[in-house]
């Protein structure tokens, strides 16, 4: 008998504000411990939280991007528990009334596009960090991260495999970067997922779920869920029962292990935070933000597909991130619709390949979009061949100047003067009597060899289309 897997994700996205959600301390990563903790973050007596408007604005951007309801009024609540890296003894979060309600996200699965519904997204503050190394028999506390703004995005249990969960996480990761609310840096913990996993017989009620905490890479997410599914199915098939629990993934062993069961779950004693007034979002503010929203990936995909006559695949690849999309569009605008496909090929091919190999973000690419357009332009207008263009690309990457400068300096201009090409063709025919004869006796291969000879003699600069035509004519 088969099993149906049910997965829902809770994702903590760190919002890209300069300062913390309730204090003016910096959120920059990597500072010396406790140097970015204000009196509010340390929870000194008498300190009070003041909400960072930028964090709310980012939550609204997210809500608008996923077609959610932005609650006109939402409430900050205190989640009470003791932990040394939680300075106030409570976390300020949102409980009954979150800022964002509902919405959905489209993901690409092997069966095509799928819609994952979102439950809610709420604002909250991050805790500090406990440092267990370097202290003998003690723990160190670093409160730099305490108070960092998070948007916790909760999905409905709409995913049915580790692949789908990863596809969802990737789509979400791409979206939060696209709308510029999160830097998406997973190594620094800016984007972390908790996965709720359960299995059931098809048609049966939902099984008991276990929550895998704090997965900070797509690979771990995949591995952890796959392991968890396997473990749950095996447990049930062996006649066991699943106990509701929170588990941790151990990447070294590739296993999940129990952290706590429902029985010893905290009673967080949520109640509205009396230090903060209800968060009111006016229609006007919401509309202002809507007016400043960038074009969203799905909209843009459809638009560039028609506008530049691209395939669905190209449009999808080019809209994987807003940086790539705008890079492409800068070039496509210069070259026009006719050559847009060429531009797409160059961005997805040579450029993306090189960026990946050298691990450079497109924003930091040594060849900026305008310069790259200059190169593709020369391919489009026949000044250089595709092969020569790769040489020019390398030189541009190395910082040797613009495409035109390099072509000029290195004398790479394609020979499109038919007289000059005819001259070379004549020389090649004269010097290769055997191959000429072979071709004339029906060996097509010999023709390619002759073209090669002509290209070689022209140092690759002869226009290949013209070489073909002239050679064919001369060989009759």
């Amino acid at each position, binding site marked *: 008998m088969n099993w149906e897997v049910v997965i829902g994700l809770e994702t903590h996205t760190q919002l890209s504000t300069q300062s913390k959600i309730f204090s003016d301390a910096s959120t920059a990563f990597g500072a010396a411990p406790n140097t970015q903790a204000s*009196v509010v973050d*340390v*929870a*000194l*007596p*008498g*300190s*009070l*939280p*003041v*909400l960072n408007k930028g964090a709310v604005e980012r939550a609204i951007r997210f809500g608008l991007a996923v077609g959610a309801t932005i609650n006109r009024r939402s409430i900050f609540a*205190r989640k*009470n528990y*003791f932990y*040394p890296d939680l*300075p*106030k*003894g*409570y976390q300020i979060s949102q409980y009954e009334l979150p800022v964002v309600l509902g919405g959905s996200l489209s993901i690409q699965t092997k069966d095509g596009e799928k819609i994952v519904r979102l439950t809610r997204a709420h604002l909250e503050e991050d805790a500090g960090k406990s440092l267990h190394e370097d202290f003998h028999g003690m*723990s160190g*506390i670093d409160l730099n991260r305490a108070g960092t703004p998070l948007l916790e995005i909760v999905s409905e249990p709409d995913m049915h495999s580790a692949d789908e969960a990863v596809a969802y996480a990737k789509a979400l990761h791409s979206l939060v970067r696209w709308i510029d609310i999160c830097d998406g840096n997973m190594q620094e913990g800016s984007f972390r997922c908790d996965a709720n996993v359960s299995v059931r017989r098809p048609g049966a009620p939902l099984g008991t779920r276990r929550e895998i905490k704090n997965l900070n890479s797509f690979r771990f997410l995949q591995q952890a869920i796959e392991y968890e599914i396997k473990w749950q199915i095996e447990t049930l098939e062996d006649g066991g029962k699943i106990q509701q629990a929170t588990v941790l993934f151990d990447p070294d062993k590739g296993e999940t292990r129990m952290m706590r069961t429902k029985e010893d779950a905290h*009673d967080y*004693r*949520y*109640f509205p935070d*009396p*230090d*903060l*007034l209800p968060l009111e979002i006016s229609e006007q503010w919401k509309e202002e933000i809507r007016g400043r929203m960038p074009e969203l990936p799905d909209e843009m995909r459809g638009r560039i597909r028609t506008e530049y006559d691209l395939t669905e695949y190209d449009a999808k690849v080019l809209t994987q991130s807003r940086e790539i999309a705008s890079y492409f569009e800068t070039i496509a605008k210069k070259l026009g619709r006719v050559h847009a496909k060429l531009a797409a090929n160059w961005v997805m091919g040579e450029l993306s390949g090189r960026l990946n190999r050298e691990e450079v973000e497109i924003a930091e690419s040594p060849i900026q979009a305008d310069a790259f357009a200059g190169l593709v332009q020369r391919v489009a207008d026949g000044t250089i061949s595709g092969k020569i263009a790769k040489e020019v690309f390398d030189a541009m990457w190395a910082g040797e100047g613009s495409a035109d400068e390099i072509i000029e300096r290195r004398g790479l201009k394609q020979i499109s003067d038919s007289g000059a090409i005819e001259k070379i063709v004549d020389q090649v025919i004269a010097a290769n009597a055997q191959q000429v004869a072979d071709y004339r006796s029906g060996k097509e291969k010999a023709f390619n060899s002759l073209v090669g000879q002509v290209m070689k003699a022209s140092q690759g600069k002869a226009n290949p289309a013209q070489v073909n035509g002239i050679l064919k004519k001369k060989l009759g």
Partner: protein
Amino acid sequence: MFEKSVAELGRALSAKQVSAVELAQLYLDRIERHKQLNAFLDVRPEVTLAQARAADMRIARGDATPLTGVPVAHKDIFVTRDFASTASSRMLEGYMSPFDATVVEKLGNAGMVALGKLNCDEFAMGSSNDNSHYGNVLNPWDKTAVPGGSSGGSAAAVAARIAPAATATDTGGSIREPAAFSGITGIKPTYGRASRWGMIAFASSLDQAGIMTCSAEDAALIFNGMLGFDAKDSTSVDRAAEDYTRELQRGLKGLRIGVPREFFGEGLQPDVEKAVREALAEYARQGAELVDISLPNAALGIPVYYVIAPAECSSNLSRFDGVRYGHRAAQYGDLDDMIKKSRAEGFGPEPRRRILIGTYVLSHGYYDAYYIQAQKVRRIIADEFQRAFGQCDVIAGPVTTSVAFGFGEKAADPVAMYLSDLYTIPGSLAGIPGMSIPCGFGAKNRPVGLQLMANYFEEAKLLGVAHQYQQATDWHRRIPKDFA
């Protein structure tokens, strides 16, 4: 000089009849002489005198305010850079804050000279000042009586004239009740008028700073320097600054004074009732109209308060875990043990009791029955005040059921202690301004207070109504004999 009001001291300073340093020294000497009151927890003459010297320079330069050079003492709920800030708790013994509370800072900016920090009930929890880790405070009128609480040190200091004014905080009556017990003037403004930044939180939705003085006029003068919007407190109200002295001279003719019949029911002692009725008669003589009003659910204030305040306190006091500052147990096993022991040792019985109550009422399964229900009744009580203010301009009645009780008298019975705040809690729950002014003496010659309440943001009116009474009476000028 010590019998002078804040207004008079300000005038004497600007006329250079006395210097700020002389005045500071005079009060420091009185504080020292009357140490047995136990009103002050931290006095640092070098700090006070340095501030006084700065005030004198400011007066000499000619950029003084009416408050420059006038001494003030601060309840130990306000954090201060220059004095220890303990909330009268062992938990914060010797704690030095890196910043000043906004109220402290604003009064400092106006030029007031800080005399030190005043004893109070631990974390402002109590009605007698018995709940201080640093010992109880004596009532200057009768050393066997409590001064009231939680602002007992503030009340006693002003009553004994060892400070001309003292900051205080009111959560359920912690300004008005000790003001009544100690025979002085105490006012809490509308919730949101005074910044809570730097006030060690007890119950955030109720805590409000106010002032204790010898007269309404003095309170109005100090409010001018003390209140106002503060971006550091999200519950602070953003309104234009106003002059709180502007209605002091306004006559009482035609003023409608609401007298809630529920405040004169069972439990009110005849001596208190007599003094309060006489005060009301004085108002009538001056042309005010007494209106019978009803606040039918006011008595529910006590149970509502003892759900909401402990709930908020249980969470507010969670930060005291021995990790970053404050008391940490000397011996402990693991992390949990460290937190448990540090808290058990650091908190006295009353904070412990309220943390337990608050944790209980917020627990899963009880939250709706207690906390949500309490919030609903709180709303009803606030609405009743709004209806009442449709019939009257201010409300008047007793502050407490009895005069100050004896030290230790109610210590064994927390519920009896909680009932001390029967008449003050409703106004706190509504968030309206309220004050207590002295209106005579009751049993054992202990002072009686008259409570006056006004609608939101009507402090100027309230102060005017109090001032008019004080123009016709001299209760507020009486000084306990050992301190005259």
